[in-house]
């Protein structure tokens, strides 16, 4: 889990709320990848969390190869350059890997029963995880600490560091850009149309396979962005981190209403806040139980999620 409890010390409610929102925006970024792919081909892409992990490993590899390993030993220019390079390369690589996975594994199964595709996604998840363990081993690996921990606010009892600012500064514009893209561009509209009715989309002249590929590309690149931000924030990567973060993000997507883009953002923020508050007030060991209880409660009582109320189609 993304453990930031140690830094907070004896902080108050506002502090945990703030931390929750920071973590939540990270979950939201990953949740968007789940929800967009589900929205368009009704696949719970269980490999998505592991894609996020591989993105984190790639970012680590870049920093390591470039020799940018600590804040003190590198010039500001080198740090900014390395972070910028990570933020470009990891999303591109994750997008490419996600599209390739769809092309090679999910697309041939497009007309197969849904369970077949989901089991394949679980298989891909294990493959990715094993690639990760071969790449950096099975112990947590220290990620270069490149963003300062200096506090930016003067209010008593609340810490908001450069790291927090980085998370918000990267995730919020990314989500705004995605929302604008999906809402206003022809390709974005084609994505929504395909998600709502693939047959009708074909009849409009929309190349559905291409739209699906674009969706995997966007979902993958969001996972790549999240991976870089997560590495820099938590200063550690691990081959199993995709599993846990992926489940949190999946819970966020279901909470918001799977297939619903604003829902994934809302769900991410709620899960982040609930996760941090339960850590603070119930103890770290209860946090997962609380989050997954939310998943169960939502699935039982409101499977369409908070924002997932669909307009019924008339016949």
């Amino acid at each position, binding site marked *: 889990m993304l453990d930031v409890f140690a830094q907070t010390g004896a902080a108050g409610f506002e502090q945990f709320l703030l931390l929750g929102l920071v973590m939540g925006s990270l979950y939201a970024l990953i949740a968007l990848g789940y929800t967009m792919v589900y929205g368009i081909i009704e696949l719970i892409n269980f490999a998505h969390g592991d894609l996020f992990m591989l993105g984190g490993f790639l970012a680590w590899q870049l920093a390591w190869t470039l020799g940018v390993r600590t804040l003190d030993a590198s010039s500001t220019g080198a740090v900014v350059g390395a972070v910028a390079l990570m933020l470009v390369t990891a999303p591109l690589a994750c997008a490419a890997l996600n599209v390739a996975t769809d092309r090679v594994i999910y697309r041939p199964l497009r007309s197969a029963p849904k369970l077949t595709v989901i089991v394949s996604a679980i298989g891909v998840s294990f493959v990715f995880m094993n690639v990760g363990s071969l790449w950096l081993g099975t112990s947590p690996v220290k990620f270069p600490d490149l963003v300062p921990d200096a506090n930016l606010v003067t209010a008593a009892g609340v810490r908001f560091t450069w790291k927090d600012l980085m998370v918000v500064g990267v995730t919020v514009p990314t989500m705004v850009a995605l929302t604008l893209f999906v809402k206003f561009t*022809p390709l974005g*509209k*084609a994505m*929504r*149309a395909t998600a*709502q*009715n693939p*047959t*009708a*989309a*074909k*009849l*409009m*002249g*929309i*190349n*559905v396979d291409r739209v699906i590929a674009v969706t995997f590309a966007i979902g993958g690149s969001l996972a790549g962005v999240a991976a870089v931000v997560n590495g820099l924030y938590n200063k550690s990567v691990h081959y199993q981190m995709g599993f846990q973060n992926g489940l949190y993000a999946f819970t966020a997507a279901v909470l918001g209403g799977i297939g619903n883009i604003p829902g994934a953002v809302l769900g991410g923020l709620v899960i982040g806040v609930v996760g941090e508050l339960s850590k603070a007030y119930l103890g770290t060991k209860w946090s997962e139980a609380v989050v997954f209880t939310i998943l169960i409660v939502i699935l039982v009582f409101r499977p369409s999620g908070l924002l997932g109320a*669909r*307009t*019924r*189609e*008339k*016949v």
Partner: protein
Amino acid sequence: MSAALLEVTDLEAGYGPINVLHKLSLRVDRGEIVAMIGANGAGKTTTLMCLSGVVKARGGKVVFDGRDLVAERVPAHNIVRLGLAQSPEGRKIFSRLTVLENLEMGAFTRADKDGVRADIEKSFVMFPILRERQHQAGGLLSGGQQQMLAIARALMARPKLLLLDEPSLGLAPQIVVQIFDVIKELNRQGMSVLLVEQNARMALKVAHRGYVLETGRITFTDTGETLLNDPRIRAAYLGE
């Protein structure tokens, strides 16, 4: 240029191990309204989906505007670009897109923004209710309004041939009359139409020619009027 805009010969199509269409042949000439009538499960929708490329043909020829769509394996998303658009059975409106966005999707293949805007205006003149409700989600429209939107959306592609699948399905009689008036008017302006209907009487009244489809085979074909007066058709499809 031959008179036939669409010439289907020995078309075979189906799902899994089952063949639905058996050597189906039909023709639509430029400027014609052609009706295809038949019972549930006869293969009417499969025929149209096959023409639009959504269901793959297993054999035969579909020559549209001089090009064989089957032999050339034209994918569904390119068939619209050739000038063949469909208003599908059950409307298939994008329920969470607005009425306006639904119309824009109909023009997805077009790059001429001014032309698209002019055509949206035309659909609003044709169906004024769509103008009133242009910013509402498509799923909130009534059945009749959704049918109007589905037809307007298909027309946004500026097709040479308009395929209409069951435009009267589930609609109140006065709405059905309104929809068929629009079909006649479109045809008067030069649009060729292939109309699939269970409402055989309405369809044969507006059609120049008609085909009767039974379990994937064409069993009768003649002018709309002759079919309308044929005692066998009257007994089987007009409830007399």
